[in-house]
C-alpha cells in the first residue's frame, strides 16, 4: 500500500451514512440499518422469504431466508484492525446461517447465499415445510405463483424423506365473504395476521393451537369481512388464502398482467389487470409507496365485471328519425353525421357534460371540441363520497385534478347546466363518459325532450338510450392515457385488452370527431396515440412541463400540489420515521 494516507472504504461509506457489505464476493454500499434481505434483493441477489414482507413487522419465523454471514474477527484488546490490499478486513465466516429479514447490514459484513451453509439450511427448511403440506398443486389456485413451488424448484430435493402420516387440518374454510382458507397448505408465515392487525387495525385473524397443530383461524361469528380482506390473498405466499372470486377460474400462467391504475376513486391505486384474450379475470394491487403501498380495497378490486358485461356497447348507434329506435352504424359516416348535427346546434343552447373519469388526453380534446363549438355550458360531474381513512378517497372520480388542470372545471357549474336542461334553455347536449340520469340529476324524460343528444359511453345506460348518437367508447382497461390523482400525481393507464367489438378508445373517438367538426391547427387532432397528445399538452400547461409518457413511468410523477394526502400512506410514512 502506498505510504500516503488513503481513505479506507469504511470511512468513505461512513461519510455517506452507509456501510460496506460484501454479497457473494462483490462489495456494495447500503445505508445503515438496511435489512440484509432488502440489501440482497436490491442488488439482484434473490433471498427467498415466506414470512418477511417489507410493509409488515418482522416475524423471522419461516427461516427460509437464512444466509451465511461473516464479520471481521473480534479484536483482542489493544490491537488495531488490519486491512487487506483492497482496504477491507478479512471476513470470518460464521458456521451457522442467520435470517436475512431480521438482521441488518454492518460495516465489513459478508453475506453468502450460494455456499453450502446457506443452501443446506434452505433445503432443510423447505423439506420441513413440505412434510405436512398436502402437495395438492394440481387443484390449488396458487399454483404458478406459489412461493413454495418456486422455492421447491430452487431448493427441493428429488426424494421425499417424510413417509409418516400428515397432520390433518381444516380445508376449504369460508373465513369471510371473499376469502377462503386452507389450513393444511398454510406455512404459518402469519403475513395475513400481521396485515389485518397492523395495516387494517382489525385483529380478526389469529393463530390457534400450538406446535405442529398451529393454524390460522378467525373466531366463529367474526368473519374476515374488512374491505381490505382480499389483500391477504395477495400476501399469502402459498395457496392457503384464496379469493372466492378467482377460485378455479383460470390458471395464472395463462394470464397476462398489465400494470395500470384503478379508476374507482381519486387515489388512483396502482394495479395489475390479469387478462386472457379479451377477458379480465382479476385485479391485484401493484406496489407504489406514494399511492397505495401494496394494498387495495376489495370493492375496487372486484369492480371489473362491467368490462366484459353484456351491457357493453360494441358498436356506435344512431337514431335516424324521431320516434324510431337506435341502430348500429359504421364509424366514419356516423361521425360525419354527428359533426354535421353539432354544427347545426346553436352554441348558446348547447352544453357539454364531460367526466372526470376521462383521461387527461381525452379532457384536452374535449376542451378543444368545446372551443370549436363555442360552448359556454361545460362542466364535469363531481362525485364526492366519504373517504375510508385508508385508501379510498372522498373523491370518487379518478381524474378530478386533471379536469381542474385541463378544463378549469370542478363540477361547480353542473347545477346550472341541469337547470338549463330542465327549463329548456339548453336544447342540445353532449355527454362524454357519464350517465347523467344517475349522478347529474337529469331525468330520462328531460333527455328525451332535448333537441339533440350525443353520448359517448362504454355501456348502455338510460342516457345512451335517450341519445341520438351513441359513440361506443371503452373502459379503462382498453385504453392508454394519463390521470392525475388527488395528491397531484400523474399516472399512466395501460391497455390490458383491445377495445371490445367495434368500440373505439375514447381519445380516438374525440380526435376523429374533432377532425370532422372542422380544421383546427392542433397536432392533437391528428395524433395517432394519446402519448402524442400528452406531448402537446406538456408544452401548454406549466404543471406538465417536461412530462412525457416515459418520464411518468409505472410509478407516476407528482405534477400538481393539491395538499391532499392519502391516510394509509401518511401512516406508513410516520411509522417509518
Amino acid at each position: 500500500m502506498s505510504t500516503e494516507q488513503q481513505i479506507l472504504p469504511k470511512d468513505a461509506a461512513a461519510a455517506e451514512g452507509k456501510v460496506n457489505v460484501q454479497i457473494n464476493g462483490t462489495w456494495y454500499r447500503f445505508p445503515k440499518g438496511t435489512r440484509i434481505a432488502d440489501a440482497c434483493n436490491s442488488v439482484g441477489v434473490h433471498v427467498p422469504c415466506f414470512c418477511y414482507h417489507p410493509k409488515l413487522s418482522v416475524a423471522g419465523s419461516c427461516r427460509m431466508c437464512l444466509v451465511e454471514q461473516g464479520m471481521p474477527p473480534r479484536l483482542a484488546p489493544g490491537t488495531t484492525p488490519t486491512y487487506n490490499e483492497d482496504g477491507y478486513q478479512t471476513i470470518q465466516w460464521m458456521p451457522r446461517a442467520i435470517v436475512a429479514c431480521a438482521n441488518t447490514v454492518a460495516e465489513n459484513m459478508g453475506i453468502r447465499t450460494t455456499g453450502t451453509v446457506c443452501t443446506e439450511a434452505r433445503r432443510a427448511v423447505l423439506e420441513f415445510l413440505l412434510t405436512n403440506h398436502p402437495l395438492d398443486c394440481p387443484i390449488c389456485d396458487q399454483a404458478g405463483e406459489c412461493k413454495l413451488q418456486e422455492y421447491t424448484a430452487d431448493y427441493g430435493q428429488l426424494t421425499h424423506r417424510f413417509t409418516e402420516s400428515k397432520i390433518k387440518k381444516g380445508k376449504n374454510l369460508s373465513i369471510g365473504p371473499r376469502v377462503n382458507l386452507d389450513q393444511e397448505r398454510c406455512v404459518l408465515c402469519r403475513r395475513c395476521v400481521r396485515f389485518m392487525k397492523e395495516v387494517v387495525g382489525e385483529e380478526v385473524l389469529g393463530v390457534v393451537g400450538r406446535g405442529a397443530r398451529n393454524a390460522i383461524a378467525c373466531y366463529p361469528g367474526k368473519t374476515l369481512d374488512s374491505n381490505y380482506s382480499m389483500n391477504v390473498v395477495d400476501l399469502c405466499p402459498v395457496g392457503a388464502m384464496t379469493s372466492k372470486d378467482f377460485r378455479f377460474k383460470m390458471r395464472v400462467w395463462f394470464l397476462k398482467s398489465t400494470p395500470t391504475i384503478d379508476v374507482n376513486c381519486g387515489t388512483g391505486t396502482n394495479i395489475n389487470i390479469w387478462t386472457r384474450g379479451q377477458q379480465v379475470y382479476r385485479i391485484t394491487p401493484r406496489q407504489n409507496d406514494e399511492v397505495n403501498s401494496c394494498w387495495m380495497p376489495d370493492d375496487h378490486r372486484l369492480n371489473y365485471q362491467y368490462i366484459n358485461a353484456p351491457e357493453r356497447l360494441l358498436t356506435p348507434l344512431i337514431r335516424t328519425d324521431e320516434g324510431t329506435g337506435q341502430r348500429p352504424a359504421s364509424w366514419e359516416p356516423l361521425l360525419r353525421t354527428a359533426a354535421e348535427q353539432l354544427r347545426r346546434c346553436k352554441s348558446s343552447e348547447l352544453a357539454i357534460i364531460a367526466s372526470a373519469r376521462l383521461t387527461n388526453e381525452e379532457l384536452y380534446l374535449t376542451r378543444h371540441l368545446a372551443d370549436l363549438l363555442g360552448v359556454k355550458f361545460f362542466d364535469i360531474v363531481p362525485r364526492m363520497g366519504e373517504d375510508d381513512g385508508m385508501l379510498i378517497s372522498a373523491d370518487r372520480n379518478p381524474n378530478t385534478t386533471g379536469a381542474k388542470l385541463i378544463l378549469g372545471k370542478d363540477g361547480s357549474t353542473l347545477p346550472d347546466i341541469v337547470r338549463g336542461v330542465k327549463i329548456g334553455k339548453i336544447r342540445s347536449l353532449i355527454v362524454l363518459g357519464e350517465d347523467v340520469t344517475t349522478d347529474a340529476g337529469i331525468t330520462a324524460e328531460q333527455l328525451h325532450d332535448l333537441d339533440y343528444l350525443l353520448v359517448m359511453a362504454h355501456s348502455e345506460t338510460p342516457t345512451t338510450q335517450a341519445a341520438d348518437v351513441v359513440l361506443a367508447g371503452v373502459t379503462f382497461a382498453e385504453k392508454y392515457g394519463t390521470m392525475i390523482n388527488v395528491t397531484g400525481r400523474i399516472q399512466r393507464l395501460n391497455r390490458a385488452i383491445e377495445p371490445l367489438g367495434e368500440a373505439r378508445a375514447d381519445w380516438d373517438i374525440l380526435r376523429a370527431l374533432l377532425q370532422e367538426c372542422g380544421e383546427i391547427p392542433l397536432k392533437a387532432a391528428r395524433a395517432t396515440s394519446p402519448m402524442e397528445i400528452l406531448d402537446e399538452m406538456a408544452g401548454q400547461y406549466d404543471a406538465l412541463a417536461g412530462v412525457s409518457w416515459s418520464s411518468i413511468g409505472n410509478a407516476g410523477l407528482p405534477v400538481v400540489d393539491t395538499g391532499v394526502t392519502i391516510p394509509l400512506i401518511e401512516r406508513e410514512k410516520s411509522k417509518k420515521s
Partner: protein
Amino acid sequence: MSEITYKPGRAPHPRETRRIFRNIDRVGYDPSIECFMKDGGYETLKKAVAMEPAAIIDEVKKSGLRGRGGAGFPTGVKWTFIPKGNTKPVYLVCNCDESEPGTFKDRFIVHQDPHQLIEGMIIACYAVQAHYAIIYMREEFPEAAKIVKRALSEAEKHHFLGKNILGSGYDLKIILHRGAGAYICGEETGLINSIEGVRPYPRIKPPFFPAAIGLYGCPTIVNNVESLCQVRQVLMRGGEAYAADGATRSPGTRIIGVSGDVQRPGYYEIISGSITYGELLYDLCGGPKPGRTFKAIIPGGASAKVMRCDEVLKGRNPDGSVRKMTIFDVPMDLDSIAQHGSMSGSGGVIVMDDSRSMPEMLRNLNRFFAWESCGQCTPCREGNPWMLKLSTRICQGKAAPEDVDLLKSVADNICGRTVCAFGEACAWPVQAFTTKFRDEFLALTRPVNAMKPHNPETAEARKYLTRED
C-alpha cells in the same frame, strides 16, 4: 445459631453445602416472614439499600455469579446491558417457569422459602433500578402461587416492598404472574410475550437480550429463581468472598437435581466443581439400584446431550498432558462437561441404568419436545413431530435401519436454524442418542420395513398400485 434439623431422609450429605437450600425441608421452618427474619432474613436487603445501585452491580460482577436457568450467563454482565441513558422504565422478571425435565430446584424455594427469593429479587431490582417486577410462575405450582402471594403482602407490610423501602426512597412493586403450562415460557422472550398477553412465541434475535428491548418495549432483566437467591448470597458474603468458593469460572454453590435410576434421587446443593459426577452418583446418591449398573447420564436437563457411562473422554492434566477419563471423573461445575460435548444446564441430572431401552428414552424426550414446540418457526414446528413419529416407529419395530440416520439428519436440520434455543434443545438429545447408542436403535429396525407403508393413506394407495394377476 442452633443446630438445624431436617425432615427424615432430607438431611444434607456431608459433602453438601446448603446455602440456598439451607431451610428446605428443615424441621420447624415455614414460609412465613417471621421464620425467615428469625433466620437473618432481610438483613442483606438493609445492607443493599444503603449501597449505590452501581456498587451492587459491581459486587455481583466481582462475584462471577452465573445464571442458574441453564445458559450460565454472568448475571452482573446481563444487568449492565440496560442501555446507557435509558429513560424508559426498567422491569425485572423472575423466571420461575422451571420446566426443563430433570430440574426441580426452584420448586422448593418458592414453596418453602419464598422470602429468600423476594429478598434477592428486591436487591436485584434495586441494583437495576426497576420499580416494577414480576414473578412468572409456572401453572403447575398453584400452591406456591398462594404462598408467594402471601409472602409478597407480608414483605409489603414490613416495608420491604412498596413505597420508600426501608426509608431509602426506593419504590418497588412485585406482582405474581402465573403461566399456563408451556415449556417455551421458560425462554426469556417467550416468557415476556406471555406476560404481555400475546402468544408466547420467543422473540426474534436481535436484540439478543431483553435488557435492551423487553417487556412492553422497555429494558427488562430476566433472572432465574436460584440466580436471584444467589444474588442475596453474593451481597451477604461480599463479591470476592463469593468468588473464592468453588470453580473459578462458575463460583458459588449449585443445586443439583438427580432423578432416575439411583438409590437416592433428590436435590443436592454442592460447591460448584467440588465433586465429580461419579462422586455425586455413587457417594451422594448411593450408586445404582441393586444389581444394576449405570448406563447413561443426561447431565443437565432433558435437552443436554446424553453421555454414555463407558464413554472414554479426554481430560487434561494440570501440566497439559491428556488423560483418559469417563463422565464420572468430570467435575460438577458449569463448564467442564461442556468440554465433552454436553452441558450442565440447570443442574438436572437424569440417570439411566442398564435396564433401560435408549430408543424408548429418546421417544419419551421426542414426545416432550413435540408437545412443547410452540410452532412459531418452521424447523422446530415440523421437525419435532417428524422425529417423534420416527422414534415411535423405531420403538415399535416398524422402522428400517436408514430411519435411524434419517432421525439424526432431521435433528441436524433443526439445530441452529430456529428462532430460539429450543431448536438445539430438541435436536441435541436426538443427535446424542442416535450416535452414542446407534446399535440399540439399529437392533430394533428391519430392512424390510423400508418397503412397508408408514401411514394409512399410503397403505390405502398401495392397493391400487399393486397388480393382482
